[in-house]
């Protein structure tokens, strides 16, 4: 016989108030709002929490036992970033650079954005674009990051190939980052991490006119 919802919730609340793990099952989805509210109230009762020293040590060990990559300061990032109050992250303690993966799996090049009756839109003088730095431009309904390479330009769509969020250019890392999930792309529109395989960004057509103006194919 199915447990009455009030009894089921009472049991879940009891677990939470005794610091036990959330043991849920499929039928609990009907009360998901009540369950998530209960979890938040249980957390509020305890006030802001910090990692226990034992957990901090365990986590540091796990991170250090994973295979080495071209980044070194997991412990530093852990101690500085994940352990303390989130605000401390604003201090900007960061691990070493993770070089974009060379030789990642070959991917099908994404198609260019070719709007029906598309038109070339002037987005500025070539001299307005810094070498190798992404600049967000709009050509009607098409958003693109334009990259200058000497006297020519390339462009990729400003929309992530996975979640439909607008990317931003991280000039320091030289990557386009998605604000909606942990994904980033190179200036060529390739995903930067082999651990997170995603389609390439769509190419956007861009050109430099004889007058030294940059134009993007948009709407």
């Amino acid at each position, binding site marked *: 016989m199915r447990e009455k*919802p*009030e009894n089921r*919730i*009472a049991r879940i*609340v009891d677990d*939470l*108030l005794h610091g*036990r*793990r*959330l043991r849920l099952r*499929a039928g*609990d*989805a009907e009360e*998901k*709002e*009540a*369950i*998530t*509210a*209960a*979890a*938040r*109230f*249980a*957390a*509020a*009762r305890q*006030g*802001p*929490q910090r*990692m226990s020293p034992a*957990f901090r040590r365990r*986590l540091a060990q*796990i*991170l250090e036992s*994973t295979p080495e*990559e071209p980044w070194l300061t*997991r412990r530093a990032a852990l101690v500085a*970033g*994940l*352990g303390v*109050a*989130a*605000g*401390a*992250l*604003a*201090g*900007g303690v*960061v*691990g070493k*650079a*993770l070089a974009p993966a060379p030789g990642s799996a070959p991917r099908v090049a994404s198609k260019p954005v070719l709007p029906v009756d598309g038109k070339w839109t002037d987005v500025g003088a070539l001299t307005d674009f810094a070498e190798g730095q992404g600049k967000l431009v709009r050509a009607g309904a098409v958003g693109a990051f334009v990259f200058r390479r000497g006297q020519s330009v390339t462009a990729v769509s400003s929309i992530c190939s996975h979640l439909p969020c607008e990317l931003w250019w*991280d000039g*320091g*890392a030289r990557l386009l980052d*998605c*604000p909606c*999930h*942990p994904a980033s792309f190179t200036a060529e529109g390739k995903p930067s991490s082999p651990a997170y395989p995603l389609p390439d960004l769509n190419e956007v057509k861009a050109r430099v006119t004889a007058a030294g103006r940059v134009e993007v194919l948009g709407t």
Partner: protein
Amino acid sequence: MYAFIYARVGNRADAEDLTQQVALKAIPRLRQGAPASAIRGYLFATARSVLGSFWSTRLGLSQAELHEDLAMAVPQGPPSDESTERAQRILAALSDNYRRVLELRFLHGYSLKEVAAEMRSTVGAVKVMQLRALRAAAKVDPDA
């Protein structure tokens, strides 16, 4: 990050598991020279996706069905009393009986029996009230 996650799952064991997942996913991808705001955004984005799959797995729902408030905004300052203040704002918006049952259970840690005695009611009635109060609390927008 741990506090952020704890405030959403309400227990240490799950919060530790999820923090570990965030660490394993996000730390390798932190880059030197990235702006602090980007790092924060990145860590919270990872935490949100980890929390989303936690709830969808535990409840047997797809992430699309989850439709759950995972507090999408990145907290601006230290988490300090964020969850406590949020809880207080929600409680303030509830009817007297609902507020009382949740205060006694969650803030004062009363058992169902103790709540029943305090409210001159029965354990069965308190269970029903607790469920209804939680459903009502879930509908309150604490930022309204």
